[in-house]
C-alpha cells in the first residue's frame, strides 16, 4: 500500500509493513483495558511507538478498535510517505512545502465502502460501536477522533465554509450525543448561524479515516478554507475522495469506516462532561449542544478509531503538532520573512517557540506579539518563546540553552494581562481569561544595548560533511 492512503485500512497495512502496528487478538474488556492500553502506548518512546489494533472486543463479534495511529514521529512520517526516521523539522518543512499546493479540488465519487450497511431505525450506538470510557472520571464513552462535518446555514453552497473538524462527542443515549465546541471554532459559528435561522444543523460524523484527513480536520485553517482541499495538498496534490452522504447531503470521506448522519438539535443544550482533556486534566461539566443520530452507515467488520488523551504527551500531541506549527509559521512569515520556523507542539500551541533572525533590538517581541493576534494565537498562545535563527525550535536542549544564556527576566519576560484564551486551560482566571507571557531569548541587538554578549562560537563549515558521514556510519 503506497501513500497517499485513501482509507484507514490502507494506512494500517502500511504501518504493519513498517512494523509500526501491533495487532492484539487476545480478548480485551472495553473498560479498563482500552484506556489502560492507550496510556501505556503513549508512555513508550515517542519516536517509534506503534499503532494498536484490537481485534477481539468483549461483547462484540464484528468490531475492531485502532488506537495511537498518529502517536509517534515514525507513524507521522509514514503518513506523509517519508522514512520513519525523518526528524520533526524535516516533517515540518515537508508539510509547509506541500501546503503551497492548496487548494486541491476534491475527487467526487458516487459510491463508498461505508454504504455497505445502513441503519435508519432502532439505532443504538452503544451496540453498534465499541465505545468505551477512556479515563476513570469521564462522564461516559466518547467518540473523540471522528471528522464532524457541517455547513454554514447562511451560505450552504459555499464548499470552503463546509467544515470538517474534530470535536469530542459524549455518547449519552442510543441515538444521542453531546458535542463540545467553543464559539471561535467553525462548528461554533455554524451552530450560531443555524440557530439564527431558527433551525437545527445537519451533521455528518465520519469515524475511522485515512490519517491525512484527520490531520487536515485538526488544522487551524481559515474559516472558508476547505479541509478536504488541504488534505489534497498534503496528499502531494492528489485530490481527496469524497462522497455525498444521502440523508444530509454533506460531503464525507469516501474511505470512512463508519458514517453517522443526524442533526444538532435547535437550541438544545445539556450537561456534558467531565472528560479528560488534552491539557492533562479533566474539563468541568458544561451545557453543550446535542446531536440526534438518524442514520448509521458502516462497512462490515468496521474499525472504530479512537485517540487516548491524558497527561501529555499522548497521541493528540503528535496529531496537533506540525499542523498547528505550519500555519502559524506561514502567517508570521508573510510579514516577517526573518522567521525560520515555529514550534507550536505543546498542548496544542499553549506554548510556542519561534526561531527568527533579528532585524534590530526589540524585534523578537514584535514577532511574538504578531503570533498572539493570529487566529490560533488568539485562543491558544499563552506563552511565546523567541530564539535566534541559529537555534532549532524543535530542539529543546538548544531552546533551554538560549533561555539560560540570553534571558534577563528584568527585560525579557513580558506579560500582557486579561487576554482571551480557550476555556479548557485550567489556569484561566476566570475561565477563558489569562495573562500572556513573551520570553525574548534572542541575543540583544542595538539599540537594545545591554549585557556582555561575547562573539558566538561558530563551527568549521566541514561539520556538515562530518554529520553526513557519521549518520551513514551509524545506520
Amino acid at each position, binding site marked *: 500500500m503506497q501513500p497517499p492512503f485513501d482509507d484507514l485500512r490502507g494506512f494500517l497495512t502500511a504501518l504493519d509493513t513498517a512494523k509500526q502496528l501491533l495487532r492484539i487478538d487476545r480478548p480485551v474488556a472495553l473498560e479498563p483495558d482500552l484506556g489502560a492500553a492507550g496510556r501505556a502506548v503513549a508512555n513508550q518512546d515517542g519516536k517509534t511507538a506503534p499503532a494498536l489494533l484490537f481485534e477481539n472486543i468483549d461483547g462484540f463479534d464484528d468490531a475492531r478498535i485502532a488506537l495511537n495511529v498518529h502517536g509517534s514521529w515514525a507513524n507521522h512520517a509514514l503518513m506523509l510517505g517519508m522514512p520513519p526516521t525523518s526528524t520533526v523539522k524535516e516533517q515540518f518543512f515537508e508539510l509547509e512545502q506541500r501546503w503551497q499546493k492548496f487548494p486541491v479540488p476534491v475527487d467526487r465519487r458516487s459510491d463508498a465502502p461505508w454504504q455497505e450497511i445502513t441503519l435508519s431505525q432502532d439505532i443504538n450506538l452503544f451496540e453498534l460501536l465499541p465505545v468505551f470510557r477512556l479515563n476513570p472520571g469521564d*462522564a461516559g464513552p466518547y467518540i473523540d477522533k471522528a471528522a464532524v462535518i457541517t455547513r454554514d446555514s447562511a451560505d450552504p453552497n459555499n464548499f470552503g465554509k463546509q467544515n470538517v473538524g474534530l470535536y469530542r462527542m459524549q455518547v449519552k443515549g442510543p441515538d444521542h450525543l453531546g458535542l463540545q465546541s467553543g464559539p471561535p471554532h467553525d462548528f461554533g459559528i455554524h451552530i450560531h448561524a443555524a440557530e439564527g435561522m431558527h433551525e437545527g444543523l445537519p451533521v455528518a460524523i465520519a469515524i475511522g479515516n485515512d490519517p491525512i484527513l484527520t490531520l487536515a480536520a485538526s488544522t487551524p485553517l481559515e474559516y472558508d478554507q476547505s479541509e478536504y482541499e488541504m488534505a489534497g495538498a498534503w496528499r502531494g496534490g492528489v485530490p481527496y475522495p469524497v462522497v455525498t452522504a444521502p440523508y444530509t447531503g454533506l460531503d464525507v470521506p469516501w474511505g470512512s469506516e463508519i458514517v453517522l448522519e443526524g442533526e444538532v438539535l435547535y437550541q438544545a443544550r445539556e450537561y456534558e462532561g467531565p472528560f479528560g482533556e488534552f491539557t492533562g486534566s479533566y474539563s468541568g461539566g*458544561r451545557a453543550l449542544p446535542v446531536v440526534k443520530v438518524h442514520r448509521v452507515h458502516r462497512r462490515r467488520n468496521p474499525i472504530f478509531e479512537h485517540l487516548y488523551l491524558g497527561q501529555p504527551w499522548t497521541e493528540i500531541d503528535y496529531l496537533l503538532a506540525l499542523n498547528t506549527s505550519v500555519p502559524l509559521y506561514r502567517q508570521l512569515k508573510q510579514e516577517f520573512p526573518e522567521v525560520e520556523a515555529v514550534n507550536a507542539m505543546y498542548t496544542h500551541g499553549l506554548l510556542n517557540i519561534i526561531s527568527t533572525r533579528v532585524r534590530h533590538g526589540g524585534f523578537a517581541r514584535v514577532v511574538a506579539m504578531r503570533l498572539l493576534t493570529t487566529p490560533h494565537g488568539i485562543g491558544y498562545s499563552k506563552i511565546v518563546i523567541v530564539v535566534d535563527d541559529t537555534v532549532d525550535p524543535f530542539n529543546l536542549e538548544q531552546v533551554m540553552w538560549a533561555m539560560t544564556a540570553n534571558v534577563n527576566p528584568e527585560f525579557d519576560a513580558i506579560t500582557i494581562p486579561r487576554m482571551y484564551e480557550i476555556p479548557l486551560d485550567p489556569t484561566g482566571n476566570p475561565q477563558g481569561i489569562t495573562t500572556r507571557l513573551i520570553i525574548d531569548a534572542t541575543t540583544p541587538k542595538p539599540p537594545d544595548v545591554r549585557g556582555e554578549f561575547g562573539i558566538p562560537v561558530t563551527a568549521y563549515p566541514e561539520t556538515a560533511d562530518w554529520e553526513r558521514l557519521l549518520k551513514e556510519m551509524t545506520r
Partner: protein
Amino acid sequence: MICPRCRCTEATTVAHSPVAGVWEMYSCPTCWYAWRSTEPATATDPDLYHPQFRINADDIAAAPRIV
C-alpha cells in the same frame, strides 16, 4: 436504577452486548452519566463512585454554556 454519579433514581438500561450476556449499558437522564455493568465498582456502585467526580442538581444547573 440509581445513577452512581448524581444518585438520580431514573437511570435505565440502554443497551445489551451484541454477543448476548457479556455486558449491559446504563444511562442517567439527569446527568447523562453512562456506565457498563462490567466496569470497576468505582464506576458502577453509587456507594463506591469516585467522590471527586460526584455531582448534584446544583452542579448541573450551574454548568456554563460554552456555545
